[in-house]
Structures are given as C-alpha cells and as structure tokens.
C-alpha cells in the first residue's frame, strides 16, 4: 500500500508538472483538473493506510520530463499513468482511481490524434525571459529566486498540511488545513506556470520526514506565521523591484493572500 501511495504521489507531480509545462491553455487547464483528482486519490489512499494502522511517507523517486514537445510530454505521462494504475487494489477506491485514470488516458489519446496540438514545450529552455515584459536582468534574477523559493514552499505546505489534516479529529483544524491546502494549490499553480513561462520549470525538492512529522503544533504554527510574514516581505520587495504594473499587482495580490493565511493559522493556536 505504501508503494502505491508513493507512486500516486509521483503521479500527482507528473500530471501537475505536465500541466505547467504545456502552453496550450485548454490542455493545461484539463491536466491541472486531473492533477487535483490525483491529489484527492492520494488523500484517500493515505486515509485507508492510517485506518489500517499503517503509515505512509513522502519519499519519492521522480525525474521531471524535460521534453521538447507536447506529444512527448503526454506520451511520457501516459506511461506513468499506466504504471501506477497497475498497482491499484481491488476495492471501491481502486475502481474509482482506475476509471479516473482511464478517462485521463482517453483525454490524452484525443489530444494525440490531432497534430496541431503537438506544439513546442518551452518550459525547460532556461532562457529566463518574460516574453511580453521588458524586465532588467536583476529583476529577472530576483523573480527567479522568488519562484524557486516559493514553489518549494507551497509544495511543502500542501504536503505538511495534508499530513496533519489526515491525523486530526478536530473539525476546526481539519477545516483550516483544508483551506490552507487549497490556497497553497493555487499558489503552486501560479508559481509553476510562471517558472514554465520563464523556461526554468523544475520539481520542488523532496520533503524529509523532519519537515512533515510535526510533534509540536503550536511551534509549527508559530514558525509558519513567521514564514508567511517572510513570504509577504519577499512579495512586497519583489513587487517594488519588478516595476511592472501587471506583475506588481500580482505580487500584491499574493501578499494579501499570505496575510489571510496568517489569520487562518492563528485559529490553530
């Protein structure tokens, strides 16, 4: 069961990063929806593992597909879906995951039938350019560091909150973790797509158990609030540095979201 959980974690990442990598907005959007379904599969698998008195972790063994074309990305993704589906148990959840994956495979097959969909993938070209903006090199550097920092942090938060949500029997905590997970999904999506746009899409690094096995909730929340404050400051500094109205507005928007995360986290204390 743990090996299946690990594969499902990897599959979630494969789907979401395929979504980030592909420029076509419709394919990107559909794959992102499938990635959220895969994340729910992870959550349900985790719940079954805990119910059976076992445990799971966030170990993974995954390399990002740095493919040159949409079809190459999608064909590689199909392989991962098939490999993971082969491990599903004979259970209600197993059947659910199987039918979800079958529909994803069907969707990908439809995309592959039309050559017009086989566009270039620019997410890994490392050009670090924002095509419709004239950003100075130091602004690009600042944005690069911000995206690496925050994409990892959002991935970390999604997994840490999910780990804690799965282990609480308090309705308020469950609800707050759920909101924070949703918020971090949105931020990861935003930053992942921005990294792809700049040609520097990369997987966030793996989480060590010391990061997500939380023994002191109060300290975790207190540290988390300090991190949110730091993220707000980074957004504010970046917003000032970028000097582009559209991007600055985006970072201000993220900044205010971080402010409300702090309010949500305070409710956990």
């Amino acid at each position: 069961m743990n090996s299946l959980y690990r594969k499902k974690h990897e599959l979630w990442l494969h789907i979401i990063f395929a979504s980030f990598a592909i420029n076509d907005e419709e394919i990107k959007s559909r794959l992102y929806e499938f990635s959220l379904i895969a994340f729910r599969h992870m959550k349900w698998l985790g719940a079954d593992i805990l119910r059976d008195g076992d445990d799971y972790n966030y170990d993974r063994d995954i390399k990002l597909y740095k493919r040159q074309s949409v079809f190459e990305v999608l064909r590689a993704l199909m392989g991962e879906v098939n490999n993971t589906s082969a491990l599903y148990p004979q259970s209600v959840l197993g059947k659910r995951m199987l039918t979800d994956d079958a529909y994803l495979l069907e969707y990908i097959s439809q995309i592959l039938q039309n050559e017009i969909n086989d566009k270039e993938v620019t997410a890994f070209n490392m050009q670090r350019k924002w095509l419709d903006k004239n950003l100075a090199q130091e602004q690009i550097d600042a944005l690069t560091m911000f995206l690496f920092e925050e994409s990892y942090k959002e991935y970390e938060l999604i997994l840490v909150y999910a780990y804690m949500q799965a282990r609480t029997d308090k309705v308020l905590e469950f609800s707050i973790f759920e909101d924070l997970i949703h918020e971090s999904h949105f931020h990861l999506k935003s930053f992942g797509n921005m990294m792809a746009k700049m040609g520097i899409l990369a997987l966030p690094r793996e989480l060590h158990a010391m990061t997500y096995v939380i023994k002191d909730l109060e300290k975790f929340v207190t540290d988390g609030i300090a991190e949110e404050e730091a993220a707000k400051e980074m957004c504010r500094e970046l917003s000032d540095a970028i000097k582009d109205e559209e991007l600055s507005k985006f970072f201000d928007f993220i900044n205010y979201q971080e402010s409300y995360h702090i309010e949500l986290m305070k409710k956990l204390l």
Partner: protein
Amino acid sequence: MFENTKLPEGMNPETLEHLMDPKNYGKLENPSCVGVAVDEKTGEYVIFYTQLEGDTIQDARYATNGCQDTVVIGSMFSEMIIGNNIDYAQGAIKKMHEKLGVMSQQQQVCADIVFSGFIASMINYTHKQEGKEEEMHVLKMKESCEGENIHE
C-alpha cells in the same frame, strides 16, 4: 546538462543548475553517520548523511527545509567532499567561503548551517567509534537565517 544551453547574462549558471537540480539531495539508507544542524528560532534544519570508508567520504546526502541559499550551498559542498577524505572536507569549508565570495550575514548563516550539519555528522561518527549509541548528532545554531538570496 548545460553544455548546449546558452544562458543569458546575470545569475551565475552554476547557481541556477544547483537550484534546478540540487546535487546529492535526499538521504542515505545506511550511512556511517548522521548529523543535524538546527536553527531553533526558525525551525530550519540541515540533516547530513555521510558514508565513510576509512577516512574517505564515499557518499553524502543532505536535506533541509531551509531557503534556496541553503540548498545551493549544500549541493555545492556535498559535490566538493564526495570522494575526498575528512581533512579535505574540513578544508572545503574554507574553500566554500572563498567560492561563495562576499556573502551577506544571512547568507553566511545559511552556509554555516550546512557546514554544521556535516560537522555534526562527523561528531556522530566519532561518538560511534567510541562505542556510544547515538542515532544522530544535533548541533544548535547560534545565529538565525532569515533567508536572503544568493545570486550574482
């Protein structure tokens, strides 16, 4: 990986490579020793796994919840010490300071937490050699990292 890619001016390409694909990141299954350096103020840590054969560092891995500066320095430092002996690794800490040039105070703290993780693993090794039972050695950092960026 980057042989055929022309990077634009700006951020050091080596830093970008370590950002995109940190080297030796993760854990070792059966390490000779394990060390942790922790910043109790922020909760930031570096855990360092070292595999020794005699005096030679056969393999090393590290993991952290810290900022990208910490990740990049851990990646560079682990690459420097693998295949070399313990004395070389101690000297590598000094070389790393030179390699990183003039760092801000915060970046210095990020570098120090990486080096302290390695030093903690060496202390763990010494303790094990002395017959002490210690799963890992933990060093607490005196100064706190507030996570500025490393790039040129």
